[in-house]
Each structure stands twice: as structure tokens, then as C-alpha cells.
């Protein structure tokens, strides 16, 4: 019951802040377009008036990109450096906005507006950045211990089968451990936005402590949202990959559909923040 109530509370809080969710979406869209638009223009210029594009539609990319007239090395260099930059910048942007989202998700009887969103984002940025780095480091370390070491042992055995089984078991264990790290990080941030002391390490310590205050409820709620998030991402990505749009109108519709998915994805994250914020507030 408590789980359900918290899930519901988080959901309502996220619905309330829909404007800020759209703001996050728009910022990400602009950022990504900054990278993809020049790339698209460049590729269109490279292909000129050629009809080779019919090969793209048939899935024969190799016949398009491997040609003297297509400077593949250059395109790949631009693509991967751009990809790295845009993913990096996007992650930083999301860390920044997380401060805003956590701040407006609070419920203390006060209406929260732009000052709260951007104020929360700005004042918590450095602390949130460090919390993210800590969390990713912990996940990385866990992966190394759970999957890396057994993999090294399995590789030296004869059979490909043992390696594959080891990796499967390791990923299951990781899947069970990762939500705990996420919960700690979420509590840390929920605490951080209410505290004047901006100290990431103290916040992360608080986060762990708060997680164990109501471990079962926290774990189930967050794990549930993470599972929903994962399934949603999986089907969204897969559906988009396989979607076929050849006409101009269909391509635009597909784009709109994709953007709706992107907004829902941000909403799911905000939902999780809302649930943890609600749990955090229930401790007081």
C-alpha cells in the first residue's frame, strides 16, 4: 500500500511539473539537433544529386558509404567525435536539470516556478555532478567485480559456453545491484535540494542511510520504475529502428511519434525522482 501511494504521489508530482519536463525535452532536442543537422547537410551535399540514396532505403548502406565520393573516414571522425560530445553535453545538461526537477518536485505547500527550477539546477549542479560521478564509479566497480573477474577466469577455460553463462549470471546480479545505487543517488539528491550544505559526499552518505531507513519500499518502488523504464526504452528503440517511413509526411509523423517517446522517457525519470522525494518527505 505504501509502495502504491508513493508511486502515485510521484506520478502526480511529475504531472504537476509537466512544463519543466517539456523544458528538459526541448533543451535536449536543440542540443542533439546542433550535432545532427550539420551532419545531415554535409551528407546531402556529399551525395549531391545521386540516386544512390535508393540503396539506403533497401538497407544496403555499404554500397553508399564505401565509395570514392564518400569520405568515410572524415564522416566517421565527425560522427563519433560529435556523438561523444553530444552525449557528454547531454548528460551534463541532464545533471543540471535534475537539480531543477528535484527542487520543483518538493511539496511543502509553496507553488514552485522558474526561479525554483533554475535556482535548484544552478545551486545544486556541482554537488549533483559529483553524486553522478560517484554513482557511475560505483556501478563501474560493481561491474568489474561481478562480471570482469569471473570473465577473466572463464576465458581461460576451454569452453565458450562457460564464458557465456558466467556473463549471463553476472548481468543478472548487476541488474539486482544497480537499483540500490540509483536509490542512494536519488535520496542523496532529494536531501541535497533541501539542505543548504552543498556537499556531494555527505549527500551520498545521507542517501545510503535514507535508503536503509525504508529499504524494501524504496527498492521495490524504484526497481519497478527502472524496469518500466527499461522495457519502455527497449520497445521504443526497437520500434523506431524498424519503423519504415518513406513519404515526406510519414517521416514527419514518425519524428513526432519519436519525440513523444522521448518526452515520456523524461517523464518516467521525473516520476522516479518524485517517488523518492515523496518517500523522503514521508520520513519527516
Amino acid at each position, binding site marked *: 500500500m505504501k509502495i502504491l501511494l508513493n508511486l502515485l504521489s510521484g506520478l502526480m508530482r511529475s504531472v504537476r511539473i509537466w512544463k519543466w519536463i517539456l523544458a528538459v525535452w526541448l533543451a535536449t532536442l536543440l542540443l542533439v539537433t546542433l550535432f545532427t543537422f550539420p*551532419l545531415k547537410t554535409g551528407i546531402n551535399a556529399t551525395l549531391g544529386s545521386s540516386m*544512390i540514396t535508393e540503396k539506403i532505403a533497401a538497407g544496403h548502406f555499404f554500397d553508399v558509404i564505401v565509395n570514392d565520393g564518400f569520405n568515410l573516414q572524415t564522416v566517421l571522425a565527425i560522427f563519433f567525435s560529435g556523438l561523444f560530445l553530444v552525449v557528454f553535453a547531454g548528460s551534463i545538461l541532464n545533471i543540471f536539470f535534475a537539480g531543477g526537477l528535484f527542487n520543483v518536485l518538493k511539496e511543502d505547500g509553496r507553488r514552485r516556478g522558474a526561479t525554483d527550477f533554475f535556482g535548484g539546477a544552478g545551486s545544486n549542479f556541482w554537488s549533483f555532478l559529483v553524486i553522478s560521478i560517484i554513482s557511475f564509479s560505483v556501478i563501474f566497480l560493481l561491474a568489474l567485480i561481478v562480471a570482469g573477474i569471473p570473465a577473466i577466469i572463464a576465458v581461460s577455460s576451454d569452453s*565458450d559456453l562457460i564464458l557465456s553463462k558466467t556473463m549471463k549470471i553476472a548481468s543478472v546480479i548487476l541488474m539486482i545491484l544497480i537499483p540500490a545505487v540509483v536509490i542512494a543517488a536519488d535520496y542523496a539528491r532529494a536531501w541535497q535540494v533541501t539542505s543548504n550544505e552543498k556537499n556531494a559526499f555527505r549527500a551520498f552518505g545521507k542517501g545510503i542511510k535514507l535508503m536503509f531507513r525504508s529499504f524494501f519500499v524504496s527498492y521495490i518502488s524504484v526497481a519497478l520504475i527502472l524496469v518500466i523504464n527499461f522495457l519502455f526504452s527497449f520497445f521504443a528503440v526497437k520500434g523506431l529502428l524498424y519503423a519504415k517511413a518513406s513519404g515526406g509526411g510519414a517521416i514527419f509523423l514518425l519524428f513526432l511519434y519519436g519525440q513523444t517517446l522521448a518526452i515520456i522517457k523524461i517523464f518516467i525519470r521525473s516520476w522516479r525522482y518524485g517517488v523518492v522525494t515523496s518517500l523522503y518527505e514521508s520520513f519527516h
Partner: protein
Amino acid sequence: MIFGGNIIPKGKINILLILLFIPLFNTEAQVIFPRPLSQRLTGYRIDAVLDPLSKIVKGKMEAFWVNNSSDLVPDVRLHMYLNAFSSNRTTFYRERGGSPGSREEDLGWIKLNSIKDRNGIDLKEVAKYISPDDGNPDDRTVLQIILPRPANPGDTVYLIVEFESKLPSNIVRTGYSDDFFFVAQWFPKFGVYEPAGMRYAATGGWNCHQFHGNSEFYSNHSVYDVTITVPENYVVGTGGMTLEEKNNGDGTKTLVTRAEDIVDYAWTAWPGYAVFKDKWNHVDITFLTPPERKNMVQRHLTAVKYALEYLTENVGPFPWPHLTFVDPPSKGSGAGGMEYTTLFTTMSAYGLPEYILMPEMVTVHEFGHAYFMGILASNEFEEPWLDEGVNSYWEERIMDHYYGNGAGMINHPLLKISDRSVARVSYVMSPSRQAESNAQWSWNYPHGTYSMLSYQKCALWLQTLTGLVGEEAMNEAFREYYRQWAFKHPSGQDFVNVFNTVIPKIYGNRYGSNLNWFFDQTLYGTGICDYKVVNIINRKVRDYEGAYFVNDSLEVKKGNYKDDTLWVSTVQLERNGELMLPVEILIRFDDGSETLEQWDGRSRVKDFTYTGTRKIQWAKIDPEYKNMMDVNYINNSMSVKPDRKPVRSIFSKLVTQLMLFIEFISL
């Protein structure tokens, strides 16, 4: 050592051999074929014992070579391939770089404990290592034995050898890993004596090259009687037909095998193999694989049967009733992807998805060598394209035929890669694609171009030729190549000659009286091919406008544009590359009509002009992408209204996917 120095008249040699040497050699006994398929100028009888601890194969060998030439031959030459793994100074490792390893157990070598002629005369004293290719004093891969008396025409030289072959730990085709053994290039093996007139030989001589970093092999078709003794828990696969398998009661077992008319005999032993059997027409197929890859078994078996079917139909029959192939375990992957005619190795990996057709491709490829390296048996040292290139061409045809045209390598709804475009990728992307022609010995290819040029470029120009003359004409030429040259070691020129007679026989003068113009540019040339559409111009034919003279007075006429209905439409083409190949051009007009033009592709520029009420909408050179030598498909076509939607669609998806990804990794 020759036998007794007798001059045996050529025609009678067989009868005499039977009478004299039955105790030693059973070469005339027909175990597998009722009649020899080849001349069988060499033969080997080997008793091999594997010691899995020392990684040494101990062998007792009786071998013969028949002097089938009219020359007095003073020596015999033997390949001692395993010595390539004896140090980092061998020609093999100098050319490859690196080292076989520093520990004793890493090294590979072959040691002759005794070498005698049939009468027991010791030949060790007259045996010495030579390096005919590069003079490398550290290379001991060719052994020359000066015969006490030169071999007369028709003589048979017998060698009775006791040898030890230590397998290397770093498997390059041959070697061991733990308890896995792939035993290849493992026994002293005769080179090929080429009499004057054979291939390019002006005078008779031994064709016995050292073992090079980038080179394969060349041997006579032989009879092999090989017995293999291994610990009884080992599973063995060989290039021979197993006649008997007996348990020796001492923890070991012995396989008695026989192979006829193959150019090389290799075998593998590993306790871990699972054995699968299948049959295709007259061929008993045995497949050895690590048991965990059992869901790959059917894929491999289907692939090999496809290859058997396709090559039998389009090239010639596969004569042997036995065929064994092996998917080595991961620790023995260095043995994967190699051919020994009736034994070959493929590759795969546990859990490889079905849309990646790499395992099938390797199986088809390595099996295909049974034809070009096995039956035709060209000289891979000197003309690698004639085996690898030709075989890659057939591999591509088989893969693209059976696994979906345009999807013979990757067949996924989102990405399709044909086997032939993989070859094109490697050629087009290579910075050294013009560094050398295909007429080069394998270790002389510069700048790491050996495989790109001898496999892929060759396959590409064969595909291009197919695009020109059609598949059925290619099949006819290959069938004739097989009929004329099976078991006879053709040269590249012999291959060209077959095409030069078969293609004109089918098409008359359509492609000229011969195809030398094609082979000179592709096989013997280094030029690239690039045809392009430079421009499409649609211009209205204007009503007369301007000055005209009536008697001496000048009048000016204004055009009446409303009545202009005629268009002069021109498509402008250019040849950018050196290669001159005939091409087709498909031109489409705005009224929906199309016209297919032919261009011999020789001039630098070519225009096609049309006058009428229609305008040109687009033009495509080589609309079916048959000319795979063209290094730029992008400029092959031009449209007045280019379709940008496919690119837009990709980028629209990319934007969303990137946003989802950033969101996914955000905490």
C-alpha cells in the same frame, strides 16, 4: 635417391612399379577411385604417432617422386614447412613480423632422424637446407638432397625417412593449444618438378619455394597412406578415408587412412570434438565441432552442401566420396579457415546470430578450395589469385545465391551486406589498391596488399566480367577450365586462354576476338574504374528570336515562348579512371519512358542527346551495379530532382535515438 639408376621406358613405368614395389607402395591399388584421377607423381606412406605431452609427432615415411620429365634431374627438393616456426629469423617470421615465441614449447620444427634411399643408403650427408627465394641463412624450410646419381627420365626416387615434427604453440594454420592439435604442413614434402613447358617453365626445374609469411602451397596430386596413433580418448579428423580404427590396448588407438589424388594431407586431434555425419549424393560428410556450438552444426552442414551442389553444377564434379571439416575450438582458432581438399577448417562462435553469415561464408570458401587449390591445384606461391581470388569469386556467388541476393554476409532487416560488397569494401577502401597487379608472387605484394589484391580485387574483376558476359557464360568457361585442367596445375595464362576461347565461342565478336583487353586491364593492370554522370541539361528549343535580313533591311523577330514545346536533353558522361569497360546507361524521361544506351566506355567524355517533347528525369550508369570495379557508385547516377527522403528518414530517427540514449544513461 633414384632407384638403381635404371632407365625405365616411360610407358612401362607403371607395370614395373607394380612388379617391383608392391611391398613398399600400394600406389596402384585402387582403394577409393577405380582409376587414378591424376598422374600421382608423388606418394607418401606415413606412420605417425602423436605424443600429446611433448607436442611431437613422430613419423616414419616412405615417399616417392617420379621423374616425369625428359630431364636428367640431379636433386630432389622437399618442403620442411614446420621449420618456419623455429625462430624469429625464418623467412616466415621476418615477413610477418613477430616471433613464434621464446620458450622451447612454443617453437615448431621438423627434424630428420634418418633419411635413406630404398637400398638403405644414408642420404643425410647429401641433404642440405637451401633458401632459393631470399638466401636467408636462418631459413630451413627447403631441403635439397643431391642424388648420388641424377634421376633419369622415368626414374622413381624413393626416400625412407624418420622424422619428428614439433608443433608450434602459436597456431598459424598448424600447431597445438593445450590438448588441441592441428597437424598440417607437418611432413617432409616434395616440391613440384616442372619440366620445360609446364606453366611458365622455360627449362625444367624444381618449383619448391620457402615458407613465406603470405603464401600458400603448391604440390603434386598424391596418394597418401597414413596411419595415425593417438591416445584413445582423442577424436581425430583427417583428409583421408578411414579404412580401419583399432584400439592398441595400451591406451592408444590407431587410424588407418588413405587418400587419393589430393595435394596435401592434414589431420586434427582433440578429445573435445563432437562428431556429426551427413551425406550429399556420393559424399560422406563428417563434421567435427566443440559440442557447445551444436546449434551451428546444421548451418555448417547446409552451407557445405550448398557449395557442393553449386560447384558441381557450375564447375565440375567433386570426385571424392569423403569430406571432413572442422570447426576448431576457440583455443585453436588459429587453425580455422584453411583448406586441405578433403579436409578443411571453418570458423564460428558460440551464439552467433543467424543473420551474421560468417560461419557459412567460411565453410563455403574453404570447401571451394577443393576445386581451385585441390582439383586444379595451381601454384599458390606464384599465382595466389588463381586459387584465392577465383575461389572468393565462387564463394560470393554461392553466398549471394543461397542466402539472399544482396545479403550473403549480413541478412538483417536493418542492414544487408552482400558477400560481394564485402570484397568491394576492402578494395575501394584500400589506400594501396593500385600498388600492384594480380600478376605477382604472393610474398612480393607490397604494403600489405596480398589478401586485398589476390582475394578481393580478383573476385571483383571476375564479378565485373560476370556482369559483362553473364553468369551462364562464366559457368561455361569454368566448366571448360575444369575439363581441360583438372589435376594438371594450370597457370594464370591457361586460365585466360580458356576464357579467350569459350567467350568468343558463345558471343562471336561481341566482346572482341579474345578477352585480352579485359585481362590486361584487370588481372595484369593496376588502373581503377570510375564512370560518372556529370550533368543533365534539359533545354527548350526556342522559336527563332533575333535579327534576320529581308533583302538589305534588318528586322528583329521576338520569340513566341508560348509555342516552345520541344526539348533538347543531354546527359553528359565522363570516364574518370584508367579502366575502359563497356557500360550501360539507363535514362528516364519525365513522361515515364526509359531508354537503355550502350557505351564502349573508351572515350573520356560521352554525351547522349535527345530532342522531343520529353525531358530527362534521371540517368544511371550501370543501373544494375554489375560493374563492381567502379570505385564510386555515387557519381554513377544523377537525378534532376534528387530524393533526399531516405537521408532525412535516417536523421529523423537518429535525433530521437540519441535523445533516448542520453536520457537512458542519465541518472
